[in-house]
């Protein structure tokens, strides 16, 4: 099989996470770190290509550093949830499984970068895809499939019951989104827009 776990999980979230869950009993920090590194590399390449049209190493590297908060807040959320619901799973195993399931976002970033890198009139195409609802549709699709992957990770990857899977998924998103919202609340970015004076 030449597809990566991210791509295989896109097609068979539950079955593939079951296989990964069994294999990941011996997960190492290095394996989890490599997955996070690949996510950050893709993010860096996406921002570089979407900003300049090219793979500019300094731009990609700068983005990888500036966006490190993303895997950090995700890791904190998923580790806390695993601590509550899946006590026997090691932290390396949880992170290894979680960061294998970012396929929808990786593909979305690749498509968006392609709009800029390949066609001769990227801005016109971008506005066309936006106006036709194709880009928002892809964004929604990536989000929904990302939720499915997280459910699959808790259910077959970590072997939680259905009820615990539902609770774990809800708690994960509460913590993940909560951390982001807390940052913006701390910086007064939200309250004035809600009419608070």
């Amino acid at each position, binding site marked *: 099989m030449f597809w990566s776990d991210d791509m295989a999980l896109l097609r068979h979230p539950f079955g593939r996470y079951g296989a990964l869950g069994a*294999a990941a009993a011996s997960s190492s920090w290095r394996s989890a770190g490599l997955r996070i590194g690949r996510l950050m590399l893709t993010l860096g390449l996406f921002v570089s290509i979407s900003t300049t049209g090219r793979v500019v190493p300094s*731009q990609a590297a700068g983005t990888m550093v500036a966006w490190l908060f993303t895997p950090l807040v995700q890791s904190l959320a998923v580790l806390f949830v695993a601590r509550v619901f899946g006590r026997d799973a090691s932290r390396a195993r949880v992170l290894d499984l979680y960061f294998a399931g970012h396929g929808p976002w990786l593909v979305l970033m*690749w498509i968006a970068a392609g709009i800029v890198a390949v066609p001769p009139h990227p801005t016109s195409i971008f506005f066309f895809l936006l106006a036709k609802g194709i880009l928002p549709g892809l964004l929604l699709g990536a989000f929904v499939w990302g939720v499915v992957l997280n459910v699959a990770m808790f259910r077959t990857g970590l072997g939680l019951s259905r009820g615990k899977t539902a609770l774990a998924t809800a708690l994960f998103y509460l913590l993940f989104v909560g951390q982001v919202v807390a940052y913006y609340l701390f910086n*007064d970015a939200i309250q*004035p827009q809600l009419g608070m004076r």
Partner: protein
Amino acid sequence: MSRLRYVAIGLLGLGVLGGLAYDSPSPRRVVRRAGYRVLEADFHVHTRFSDGFLSPFDVVLHARRNGLDAFAVTEHNLVYPAKMSRWFSRLIGGPTVVVGEEITTDRFHLIALGVEDRVSPYGELGPIVDAVHQEGGVAIAAHPVKRFWPSFDAELAKLDGAEVMHPLALTARGGREGVGWRWEEMRDFTTRATQDGRHFTAIGSSDYHFFNGLGVMRTLVFAKDDSEAAILQALREHRTVVRDLAGNYYGDDTLVAELKEHPITDTDQDENGAERGYRPRSPLDRLTRIAGWLGMFAMFAFSRRKGPGCAK
């Protein structure tokens, strides 16, 4: 390592070589009109610290890439990212960075330029503009569409200027209305504000968040030099000119007349500015871009070895 991984690394390597070879700062030149230096500036830029993609350092490099002489980082209700940009730009000899803040509320958005301390977004517009002025800053109405008019109209005498050009103009040209905001409303606000002969600083801004468009709309600033202080002084004295997509000018009448007589023909703002930023410089440039993009796919899509746990 699998053979496909070597292909991925090879494609990405080609992309990196193209990026190194073809990515370079846009050459700047010194242009003078009416006894002033004419600077191309963008006074509305966001970073990763609010809702942008780029770090405060990367926006400096991108502003240089897109040929700006000056720009302002204006985060939502924050100033410290702007100070980070200014520090970095001074370090590398980049464009002049004006420290700013987009004071963002449900009733108005206000660009505060030249403020060193954060201006609180809580309260009414009048006292907030006063606070900006007390810090020696300049208060610019940000994208003054109709929903913000009640606040701006009530404090028109206190405002230093308004954004009259904005990327919304690009969507207007395509017959689309964006997110319910219309560029024509911005233009009408400035036209109305200057009807009784009031001097008003015309601003063109990209409201940059992501992708290439930093400087896609820009302001021509007539300053004594390219220092932050000289730029702020020019803004206070309304020495700016902005051009819309139809070629109409907004701003100081004398300076507009000067520009009509002695136009600056190769300013980096034109109606295809957004496309121009992505234009390949040669077929080889295009080829390496596509290689980099394919390499990006191959890096995450193809298996490194066998699966989890194997890398230990």
